[in-house]
C-alpha cells in the first residue's frame, strides 16, 4: 500500500507486544493493551496514507470468513435443505441403526433417498420402502453401492455414456460391469437404479425393483431395461418376472446363473456379460450369439498354453480374490460348470461355503468386500492392502495355479489401483518362481476410458508386470479355467456354443 512501510494486526499477548516493540511500535497504548485486545499497528508516511489500511482492516474484521461457502457441511437434513432448497435427493451414509430416522426425514421432506448405509434392519427397510412408495418416491438401498441418475453417479460408479439402456440392479458391481461393457460398445445408460442387496429378498419383496421397472417403463429415454440380481426367492422372482413380461419394452433379466428362457421381449442372461450383450442387441436391433471370448479360439488357447507351460504339477487351483461381491458370484457361475465345485465365503450353494475365508481351499473365490474383511477397514475397492497380503499368501501356496482379480475403476474406487498392486503382483510371481513355479495372474478391469484413473494407463501398468487382462470378469474366469486345467476345459468352452 502506498505510503505504508510496515503493518501488523496482532493480539496483544506479551510475545506479540515484544515483536511490535522490536519493530519500532512503542508507546503507552501498546503497553496498556492486554492479551484479549487487538493491536492494529501501521507505520505510514503520513495521516492520509493510514486511511486505506485502516479501512481494509475494519472490512476484514467485519467480514472474517473461516471457510468458503461452498464448503459448508450441513449438520442436519433441515439445514442441508436450507443450503440447497432445490435438492431432490438425499444420499445417506451413516451407521445402519440410525439410518431409518434420517431416511424417513428425507422422505418426509419430499426427497428421494440413496441409502448407502449397510446393516439396516430388514423391518426398517420394509417400512422405508413402503413409506417411499406411498409418496411416489424411491429408496435406493439400504446397502446400495451404485446408482446413476441422469448421468450423475451416486456411490461407486463409472463415467459412462448417456444412452437408452436402463438398469435396475440389486448389485453395485453388477451395474458397473454391465454399464462399462455397454460403454465399450459405444452404448450408454438412461439411468441405473440401485435397489440394495436385500430388495429381492422374500421379506422386502422387491418394492424398489418393481418401482424401478415402472419408472424406466415410463421414461422416454429408456428403450431397453436390464434387471440384475443374484437369484431371488421364488415368490419375488415370479413377481418380478411377471412385471418384466408385462413391460412394453424389451427386458433382459439377469438373475445370475439362472438359464435362458422366456418370451421374445424378455430374455434371461446367465452372466453380466450376457446381459450387456443382449441389451446391446436390442438397442442395435440385431441379436448376436454368445462367444466365450472376444478373441479367436486359437489366440486364447495359445495364450493359455504359454501361461501354463511353466507351471509345476502341484499347481491346480484357481484363487479368485474379489473386491466386488457380484463379480465373485459371477465367477463361480462361470467356473462351476467348467471345473466343478468352487468354494467361497459367498457360495452358489451352502455346501460350498468355505470354513475359513482367510485360507483358500481347492478352487476358491473370495469376496473380500464381505463383512468379515471390511469391519474397521475401507472397502477393498479403495484399500488394496488386504488383497495384496492375500495375493502373496496365495503365491506361497504350491497348489495355486491362477490368481483371479477384479480391478474396479470409477468414482469412489482407489485412485491408482495398478500402481497400488503392481509391485505386489511382481513379488508374488517372484515368490512362486523361487519355488520353481509359475504363477498366472488374470484380471479384468471394470472401467471406461473416461474414468478418472485412466483405463489405458491402468491396463498398461498391469500388463507390464505380467497380468493377463481380459475384457470382462466372465472371460477372465473362463481364461483362468483354461489355464488351470491346462486346456482341458477347452472342449466345454469351444466345443459348442453356450
Amino acid at each position: 500500500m502506498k505510503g505504508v512501510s510496515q503493518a501488523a494486526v496482532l493480539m496483544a499477548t506479551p510475545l506479540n507486544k515484544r515483536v511490535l516493540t522490536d519493530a519500532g511500535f512503542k508507546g503507552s497504548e501498546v503497553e496498556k493493551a492486554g492479551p484479549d485486545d487487538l493491536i492494529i499497528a501501521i507505520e505510514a508516511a503520513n495521516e492520509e496514507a493510514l486511511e486505506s489500511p485502516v479501512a481494509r482492516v475494519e472490512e476484514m474484521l467485519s467480514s472474517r470468513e473461516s471457510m468458503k461457502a461452498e464448503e459448508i457441511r450441513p449438520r442436519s437434513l433441515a439445514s442441508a435443505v436450507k443450503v440447497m432448497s432445490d435438492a431432490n435427493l438425499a444420499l445417506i451414509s451413516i451407521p445402519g441403526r440410525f439410518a431409518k430416522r434420517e431416511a424417513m426425514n428425507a422422505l418426509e421432506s419430499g426427497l428421494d433417498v440413496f441409502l448407502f448405509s449397510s446393516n439396516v434392519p430388514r423391518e426398517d427397510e420394509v417400512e422405508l420402502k413402503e413409506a417411499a412408495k406411498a409418496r411416489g418416491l424411491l429408496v435406493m438401498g439400504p446397502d446400495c453401492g451404485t446408482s446413476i441418475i441422469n448421468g450423475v453417479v451416486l456411490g461407486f460408479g463409472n463415467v459412462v455414456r448417456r444412452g437408452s439402456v436402463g438398469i435396475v440392479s440389486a448389485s453395485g458391481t453388477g451395474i458397473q460391469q454391465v454399464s462399462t461393457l455397454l460403454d465399450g460398445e459405444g452404448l450408454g445408460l438412461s439411468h441405473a437404479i440401485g435397489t440394495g442387496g436385500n430388495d429381492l429378498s422374500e421379506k422386502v419383496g422387491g418394492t424398489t425393483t418393481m418401482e424401478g421397472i415402472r419408472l424406466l417403463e415410463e421414461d422416454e429415454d429408456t428403450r431397453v431395461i436390464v434387471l440384475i440380481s443374484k437369484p431371488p426367492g421364488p415368490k419375488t422372482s415370479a413377481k418380478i418376472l411377471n412385471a418384466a413380461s408385462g413391460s412394453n419394452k424389451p427386458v433382459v433379466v439377469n438373475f445370475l446363473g439362472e438359464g435362458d428362457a422366456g418370451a421374445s421381449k424378455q430374455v434371461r442372461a446367465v452372466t453380466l456379460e450376457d446381459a450387456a450383450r443382449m441389451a446391446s442387441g436390442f438397442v442395435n436391433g440385431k441379436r448376436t450369439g454368445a462367444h466365450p471370448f472376444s478373441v479367436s479360439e486359437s489366440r486364447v488357447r495359445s495364450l493359455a498354453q504359454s501361461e501354463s507351460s511353466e507351471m509345476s504339477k502341484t499347481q491346480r487351483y484357481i484363487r479368485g480374490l474379489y473386491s466386488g461381491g457380484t463379480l465373485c458370484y459371477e465367477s463361480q457361475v462361470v467356473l462351476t460348470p467348467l471345473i466343478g465345485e468352487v468354494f467361497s465365503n459367498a457360495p452358489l450353494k451352502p455346501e460350498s461355503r468355505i470354513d475359513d475365508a482367510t485360507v483358500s481351499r481347492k478352487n476358491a473365490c473370495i469376496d473380500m468386500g464381505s463383512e468379515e474383511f471390511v469391519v474397521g477397514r475401507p472397502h477393498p475397492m479403495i484399500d488394496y492392502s488386504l488383497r495384496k497380503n492375500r495375493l502373496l499368501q496365495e503365491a506361497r501356496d504350491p497348489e495355486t495355479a491362477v490368481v483371479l482379480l477384479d480391478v474396479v475403476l470409477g468414482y469412489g474406487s482407489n485412485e491408482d489401483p495398478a500402481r497400488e498392486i503392481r509391485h505386489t503382483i511382481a513379488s508374488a510371481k517372484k515368490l512362486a518362481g523361487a519355488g520353481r513355479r509359475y504363477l498366472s495372474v488374470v484380471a479384468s478391469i471394470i472401467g471406461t476410458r473416461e474414468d478418472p484413473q485412466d483405463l489405458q494407463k491402468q491396463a498398461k501398468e498391469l500388463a507390464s508386470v505380467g497380468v493377463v487382462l481380459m475384457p470382462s470378469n466372465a472371460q477372465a474366469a473362463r481364461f483362468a479355467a483354461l489355464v488351470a486345467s491346462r486346456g482341458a476345459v477347452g472342449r466345454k468352452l469351444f466345443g459348442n456354443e453356450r
Partner: protein
Amino acid sequence: MINVHGFGNGRARLSRLVTEQKVASSPAKRRDSPPSTFASYTLTATSIGFAAANRIRGRGAIGRVHSIFSGAIDVVLRGGSMVSIVREEVGSGPTNIVTDLPRKRSMAELGVEKSDQVLRKSGEIRIGGKRAVLVSIQHARLYRTEKEFPTKPRSISEIRTNVAAVARTAASRGHHQGLGGLIPLLVPSGIEKTKRPAALNSFSRLALPRVRSLLSKIREGRISDLGTDVQNLAGLGPGLTPSGDDMLSGLMASLALIAHNLKGDAERVRRVNREIASSARKRTTMLSEEYLSQAARGETNEHFQELIKKMLTALPNEAKRSAELVLKVGETSGTDTVLGILLGFQLSLDEKSAVGVA
C-alpha cells in the same frame, strides 16, 4: 444432499424419472426457527460441545459477551471459562455451540454487544436485553471428541506415508504468514529443504529455535523443562488465536489421540500436555487458553480430530483431503494447527522419543 437437476445435459431430469408431481407437490419442508415476539433473532443450536454443555448448566445469568465476530460470539462465563456460539461452518468443538445462523448473516449483525448479559433459561440461552438473541439448545446434539477411533489404525509405515502426504499438502497449500512456513524445515516428508531461515517470516524465525528445543525436550522426556520454550511460543504470531497457540494445540491434541489409539504412554503424554497448557497460562488470549486446556485433554474441533483420525486410519489421499479442508480454517489457524499435528505425529512415531509409540 444432491441436486441431480443441476448435472448432466440439463435435458433429462430425475424429476421426469421419479415423477413430475413430486417436485411440484412436495417441496422440501424447512424447519425454520420459530418466530419470537421477544427476541430479535432466534437461533437453533444443532450441536453443543461437551465442555460447553457442562458449563452452561446453571439458570439465570451465566456470563457476559466477551467478543463478537462474524462467525462467533464468545461468552465468558461466571467462573472465568468460555463458550463460543458459532455459525455452522466453524464446526463442532468442545466449547462450541453450533447454530443454524445462515452463512450470509454475520453474528456481528444480530444486535449483540460486548458485555451483554447472557442468561440461561430452560432449553435456551438468551443474549442481551430488549433486542435479545435466543439460542434454542433443546435439540442440539452433544459433541464430544471421539478419542478411540472405530477404524483400526494402519501400520506405522503406512501412517508415516500419511504424515508425509499431509506435510507436502500443508507445505504447498497452507497459509504461511504464521508458523506454517516451518513445516518443510521440521517435518521429514520428502519436501526439498530449500527454505532457509532467512526466507522465513519474522514469527517463524523467532519460533524455529524454540520449537526445536521444545521437541527435543519432549523427545528426551524432560517434561519439567518445557515451560520456557512454551512461554516463548504461546501468544506468538498473527490470528485471534495466535499461531504459536494453534501449533501447541495441534501438538497436544495429536499426542493425546495418537497415544490413545496406538497404545502409547498416555500418562506421560498427559503430563507433557498438562505442562504445556499450564505454562501457556497468562501468556495468551482467554480464547486461546481455553483451546489449549481442551487440547491438552485430547479435546479438539471436529475438523482437526478428523484429520488426526484420517492420518491414523485412512489412505494418504483421504488424509490429504482432510488436511486440505483444515488448511482453510481461519487465516493461518488451520495451517498452524496442522504444523502442530505433524509435530505430534513426528514425536509419536520416533522410536527414541519418550512419547513414542513405534
